[in-house]
């Protein structure tokens, strides 16, 4: 046999080895399990928000009706419920449309896009929620200033000053964990592309 052809075959085998060298053995099961655990954290947040919104929607009207006796503006109360309902359904649509649990059945590029979209839309929703919450607190404070005594108002302001930072910290730390989890998932998926 011509040496040239043998050499060609050896070179082709060397090419094959070179190509395989760049590939990694992937532990598919473990990778999917790790990603599923991470997605579980993101989904837990979804249930938490839906429960909180749900409770507000259910008990909100009764509370507003009760506060009516203290000259609480009804329009503000129902606006709050409408906004809560919007948030509830927006979260449902976001999570169901993107359906993060199905990523193990999809190709990697689609899965990466899903997690990136989830982060983008969730940030928009969160900005909206922060805005509405701020308006609600200011409105309640203005209403309270009409019915509470000076002393009562001071106590109310102190309570707010303590609760608001706690609330902000709780929400932002949870959101930070969710977004960093999404980033980890995206990074792990991008390694497979």
């Amino acid at each position, binding site marked *: 046999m011509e040496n040239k052809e043998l050499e060609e075959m050896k070179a*082709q085998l060397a*090419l094959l080895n070179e190509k395989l060298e760049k*590939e990694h053995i992937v532990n598919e099961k473990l990778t999917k399990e790790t990603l599923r655990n991470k997605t579980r954290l993101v989904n837990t947040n979804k249930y938490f928000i839906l429960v909180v919104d749900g409770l507000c929607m259910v008990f909100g009207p009764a509370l507003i009706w009760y506060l009516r006796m203290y000259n609480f503006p009804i329009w503000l109360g129902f606006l709050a419920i409408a906004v809560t309902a919007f948030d509830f359904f927006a979260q449902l649509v976001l999570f169901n449309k993107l359906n993060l649990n199905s990523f193990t059945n999809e190709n990697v590029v689609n899965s990466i896009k899903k997690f990136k979209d989830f982060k983008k839309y969730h940030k928009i929703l969160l900005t909206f929620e922060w805005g509405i919450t701020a308006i609600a607190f200011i409105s309640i404070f203005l209403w309270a200033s009409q019915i509470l005594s000076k002393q009562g108002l001071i106590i109310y302001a102190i309570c707010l000053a303590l609760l608001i930072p706690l609330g902000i910290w709780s929400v932002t730390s949870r959101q930070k964990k969710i977004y960093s989890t999404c980033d980890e998932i995206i990074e792990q998926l991008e390694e497979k592309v």
Partner: protein
Amino acid sequence: MKEKEKEFTDIVKAHKNTIYTVCYLFSKDQDEVNDLFQETLINLWRGFDSFKGQCDVKTWIWRVSLNTCLTAERKKKRRVETVPLSMDINLFTDTDDDTKQIQQLYSRINRLGLVDRAIILLWLENMSYEEIGQIIGISTKNISVKLVRIKEQLKKMSNE
């Protein structure tokens, strides 16, 4: 158990090229490569305890990979669930220049008989006749005779 798994995984990672090359050159399509790859890993795992110290790791890997491919039967179902290790590459459908070269190698070797494929592959990997004989299980003299015939066959194919 975890230590044993880690040791096994390390060996497999170090010799993945060998295992995959053998499976690729003995398959008809990507599904078969994956099946053979999984099958080889299963056989390596099963023989892991009894192999230790008996021979060189490289020889053992070659022997098990070739034996698996030479004796494999076509399975209807893929065994992806039982062994969670895989390689994410498809040498049958990729179209880059390197892969086309590799596919040329594949088409040459694939036209040989099963044992001949094993012999020429080991020879192309610069193994001595003794080593080839040890892995395949035939005498050195037999190896040299077979190699001559294989080279003649390959020459005929390239002249066609």
